[in-house]
């Protein structure tokens, strides 16, 4: 399978380990990623509170680039994925808006390229493929699969399997041998872009709720599919003295471990909360 790859800004900076691990996992699963040439920012957290048309034009430009390649496009970042999907939906349902966006871009926009999240892409390859590719099943690793808001909302546009209790990530992780726990905060907000403002206390409060919830459900780690969720959970956990914080992984990192890569190859050493220790305890740090 070949698909256009839209890394978005995070995956070239704060979320570089998501990029590293995502590319390896896709390669292992015979998914060929072709990075969009000359891609630009999708506008994510700031454009849509500034100007509605601008917020659509920025993702539309990247969608048009995928059109040129004649490929569908995958966006690992949940915020990018969300903006691309919403743009595609709005422009498909409003010809006037589409015309306005085309004028702004100075090029045609067809809307042919479909958008897929990385979770959806891996899930579509199938649990069986994941199971077969797994060299060391993540046996005994209890994880809380965390989807956040942007992978599932607005449900009418994104059409997730279940906007309140999604299963895609859980299934993939289970196929790799891990034990996803049943927990109630899968789609609660982490505080998202408040981390970039003066109101970081909002993020701290919401992250605490998520971490407490995951721990109460018996999870040893939280697994995300979003660079913003990851940095919030990774950087804003306030731990009581003496307690160990909960490591936070990208799902591609854990798949990479299951597929036999080393923690170093996958960039797991880049986390604020040490993610390598838990893996070392299981003897999974090195490549096999």
């Amino acid at each position, binding site marked *: 399978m070949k698909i256009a790859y839209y890394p978005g800004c995070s995956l070239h900076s704060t979320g570089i380990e998501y990029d590293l691990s995502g590319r390896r996992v896709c390669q292992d699963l015979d998914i060929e990623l072709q990075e969009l040439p000359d891609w630009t920012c999708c506008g994510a957290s700031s454009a849509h509170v500034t100007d509605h048309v601008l917020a659509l034009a920025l993702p539309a430009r990247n969608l048009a680039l995928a059109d040129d390649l004649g490929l569908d496009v995958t966006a690992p970042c949940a915020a990018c994925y969300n903006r691309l999907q919403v743009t595609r939906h709005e422009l498909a349902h409003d010809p006037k808006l589409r015309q306005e966006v085309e004028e702004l871009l100075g090029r045609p926009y067809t809307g042919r390229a479909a958008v897929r999240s990385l979770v959806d892409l891996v899930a579509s390859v199938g649990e069986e493929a994941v199971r077969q590719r797994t060299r060391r099943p993540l046996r005994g690793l209890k994880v809380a699969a965390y989807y956040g808001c942007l992978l599932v909302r607005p449900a*009418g546009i994104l059409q997730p399997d*279940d*906007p*309140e*209790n999604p299963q895609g990530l859980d299934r993939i992780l289970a196929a790799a041998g891990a034990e996803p726990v*049943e927990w*109630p*905060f899968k789609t609660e907000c982490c505080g998202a872009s408040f981390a970039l403002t003066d109101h970081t206390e909002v993020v701290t409060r919401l992250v605490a709720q998520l971490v407490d919830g995951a721990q*109460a459900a018996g999870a040893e780690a939280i697994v995300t599919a979003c660079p913003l969720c990851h940095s919030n959970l990774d950087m804003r956990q306030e731990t009581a003295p003496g307690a160990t914080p909960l490591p936070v992984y990208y799902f591609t990192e854990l798949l990479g471990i299951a597929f036999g890569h080393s923690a170093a190859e996958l960039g797991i050493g880049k986390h604020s909360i040490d993610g390598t220790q838990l893996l070392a305890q299981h003897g999974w740090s090195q490549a096999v």
Partner: protein
Amino acid sequence: MKRIGVFICWCGSNIAGTVDVEKVAEAARSMPGVVYATDYKYTCSEPGQQMIKDAIREQHLTGVVIGSCSPRMHEKTFRKTVESAGLNPYLLEVANLREHCSWVHPREEATTRKAIDLVRAAVAKVARNHPLHQGHIPVEKRALVIGGGIAGIQAALDIAESGYETVLVEREPSIGGRMAQLDKTFPTLDCSACILTPKMVDVSRHDKVTLLTYSEVEKVEGYIGNFTVTVRRKAAYVDHSKCTGCGLCMEKCPAKKIPSEFEMSLGRRTAIYRPFPQAVPNKPVIDREHCLKFKTGKCGVCAHFCPRGAIDYEQQDQRVTLHVGAIVVATGYDLFDPALYSEYGYGRYPDVITGLHFERLVNSSGPTGGHIVRPSDHKEPKNVVFIQCVGSRDEAKGVSYCSKICCMYTAKHAILLAEHVPGAHPYVFYMDVRTAGKGYEEFYKRATEEFGATYIRGRVSKVYPRGDKLVVRGEDTLLGKPVEIEADLVVLANAVVARHDAAEVARSVGFSYDGHHFFTEAHPKLAPVETNTAGVFLAGVCQGPKDIPETVAQASAAAAKVVALFSKDQMATNPMTAQVDPACCAGCMLCEPVCPYHAIRPETIQERVGGKAISRQVASVNEGLCQGCGACTAACRTGCIDLKGYTHQQILAEVEALCL
């Protein structure tokens, strides 16, 4: 020479407020064939009708056009009027100047012009009307009632009490329906079983009622007064003529852990079972799917212990053919699956239940003997959160309507909880509290004022476990603040929805249903218990959500319609039926599949062509079945089917009058 009279009704200001009625009457005077035209404030009133009669006699009218409201409203009335003046009732046309003109257009010149056009078309048509005469068909004076809930029971009792044979068919092993599952009824808090079970017994013992439980209607053929119905009696594997209902078989049956449908899976039943102790008939059936004898070939305990030798593993389904004159459909409802709201966790958290589960928990003959306990640990709950509108009024979930009963039954649950569990606190999340009904608002007030129920206006966003509690998170929209309640039990008021197989039932009996699969009444105001198929009537929630008082009222209304039909030996038929001209019919039978009433069948006729006798196939219309919809006349390629009262010639005359 035609002599047509035209009467333009003001309908108070309904028509006259928008249309210049005098001008319409004036214009009518110069239309071909019109000898008399006038306008009048209320044509349907007694003096209005008298005016028409007088004009028919004085002016020797041969046709009448009335420009008024929709013919669905008063055509019947006006037919009687002209008939009493000696004119054939089908020499009348109604031009719809209200719904089709004055109500939908502004007051301006063009509206009056349209009214004149509508009258001109009606005048052109009535000039080509022929007298039509009603036929008569015999009426089989026996009724079929489908569904043995409170609606079906009430309808069957009312018809039987009027002296007519009634067959009551119920799919389940016992009659009683949903009402049998309820504990108390609002707003009086009568015990549901105490008011229902006597009626169940009455209907089963009534000498005019034949009760067919564990049976399903498979096929309905025929027409008003003359239906032929096939009923499948499902094999109970128990000969009910021998069974005394002693219950020994149920005591001995080794398969004891089957979730009881009647108890909403909160209780267990055996493989040979009756749904509940007060079942009517109080005789068991064997659930083949769970019976060890059927599953493994071994067992046979019930047959061994039955003192009457009533167990019969070889019993087969039987088909019974019934001849009935009228059918009352009272098939009830299902409940919306609340698992579709995954934020409430129904199906994942055992202490999130539905209102019907709560009814069983609070019922003294229920699985807990009337003790309200949590399904998970059988502890008594203190804080109970009730969530309203689970499905109802949520277009995103496909249920746009209000289920009508939930506000009231939740108020009842709040009261029952406070009465049963000392110190318990009911919380109710609601969108609006709808209490339209006698004594209903007062009942709701009691729940809040006397029993301390806390009503919170807002939706719940999430229910999740914390320890052994359930945290209910929502918004209080009156305070504009999020709220969080630690509950022991959460009760969801899930929407009333049509039976899963409602559409199938409607198709097999032959009447229409709406987008939600509730059965459609013939007219929402003026024919609320009739269907568009003559002789088929509706009762209860199968027609739309309603509570018990309304259901009983509707059931009695349906029974009254049946009894009125049976009060005559013969029934007048609608003469506006399709008519085939066999001389030009090619026998292609394209008309047969388009007929929604199965009224057209091929018929072989004998002819002499060139001195030789030949036989050929032509279409033939059963006038008893034909409802005069006209679908066949449009499908007929040779144009040799005509609808009496709406012939091609009449309709083309209307079109010409409008367009040329």
